[in-house]
């Protein structure tokens, strides 16, 4: 059975410097609520997203400036996409799928490899559960896309973009992943759920 761990609880008597842990006196303690999985690894249940180099993000253009674009990324601050790094011009309110090129020491995010996405729906999803929504080798994402016919882009920042197909059904499937993200065999459950509820 998976054990729920709360902040300050010891997860190892050796020092492991990873995300969401603190090391004190040579021992490792959890710093957020999480689970110990079968291999005794710590998996955070809920956390605040910190951008990393190479993360894929979904963002919305909020400012157009002479030298580039300010992009809303579900973070305390907007990210920046330089005009030099994109051939596609963006307008305010347009959605992009991009990569994080660099994050500096105070958390300013530089973007690169931006693709414009056509108008669609953006929802917020807990960033800690994003790996679950994508699944092993995109399995969960493929299941949702095939089951609903929607175009789905998932950003590590917790923004999920949806367009076309049966969006209400896709939203229910995503909600299901959110609520049951810590159970096993979830991809199969979602596939079955989508097959049962598919519009004839």
């Amino acid at each position: 059975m998976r054990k729920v761990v709360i902040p300050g609880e010891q997860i190892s008597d050796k020092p492991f410097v990873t995300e969401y842990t603190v090391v004190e006196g040579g021992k490792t303690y959890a710093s957020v609520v999480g689970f110990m999985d079968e291999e005794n690894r710590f998996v955070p249940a809920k956390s605040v997203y910190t951008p990393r180099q190479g993360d894929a993000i979904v963002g919305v253009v909020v400012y157009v400036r002479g030298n580039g674009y300010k992009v809303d990324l579900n973070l305390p601050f907007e990210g920046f996409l330089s005009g030099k790094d994109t051939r596609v011009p963006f307008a305010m309110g347009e959605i992009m799928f991009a990569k994080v090129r660099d994050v500096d020491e105070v958390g300013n995010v530089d973007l690169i490899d931006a693709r414009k996405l056509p108008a669609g729906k953006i929802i917020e999803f807990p960033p800690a559960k994003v790996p679950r929504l994508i699944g092993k080798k995109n399995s969960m994402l493929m299941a949702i896309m095939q089951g609903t016919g929607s175009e789905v882009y998932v950003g590590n920042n917790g923004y999920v973009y949806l367009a076309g197909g049966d969006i209400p059904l896709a939203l229910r499937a995503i909600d299901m992943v959110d609520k049951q993200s810590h159970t096993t065999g979830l991809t199969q459950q979602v596939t079955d759920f989508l097959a049962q509820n598919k519009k004839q």
Partner: protein
Amino acid sequence: MAEEKKLIINGKRIDGRSPDDLRPLRIETGVLNEADGSAFVQWGGNKIVAGIYGPRECIPKHEANPYKALVKCRYTMSPFASKEEHGRSGPNRRSIEISKVIREVFENIVVAELYPMTQIDIFIDVLQAEGGTRVGAITAAAAALADAGIPMRDMVCGVAVGKADGTIVLDLGKEEDNFGESDVPMAISNRGKELLLIQMDGLLTKEELAIAIDKAMAASEKIHAMQTEAITKRYEKLESEGLKL
């Protein structure tokens, strides 16, 4: 005082507790939809709700620190919180002081270095008060921070110890707080057993204070167990629901 009222009769306190008993305590997390994390504490006659936002953009911007996140705290008591008139619930001398001491507790346990240039807001509203609201507020805010997924070095909880009718009593109620000899609210971290808050209203001798701290340490274990239960319960419940499908 016109009429002398006994606070302890035959070793029992006004509400029937013995000196080392806590009032009934119930903690629940995730009670608010819009906040990033939240908790509700019902502790005797106290009803306290805490909501967390953040880390988010620091406002005013000139306060932002490029080395760490700011922890901000606002404690307010609602106009209908207790028998006495509290007026409108804006900041007053008392609530500004309590906000400050609570903020200092959480500045010590939040891992603020991870989120430079941002602020973490802790909002605490006391809906009903019956003595010991600041310790209840700390207990609620710690559970809410855990619910929000904000990294913390340790869990913390609050408990008050005081003196009424010459006896050291745990977790003072309204009458003991107002008419007893002393009231010492404390905040204690669980793992490190650090005293992150200690205030004293009234007087205790050195020896009495040592006993009071020991009692608070013992009680903090119980309160911490309830906080843990409140935080883990949500996930365990989800897991059992998930397995049914």
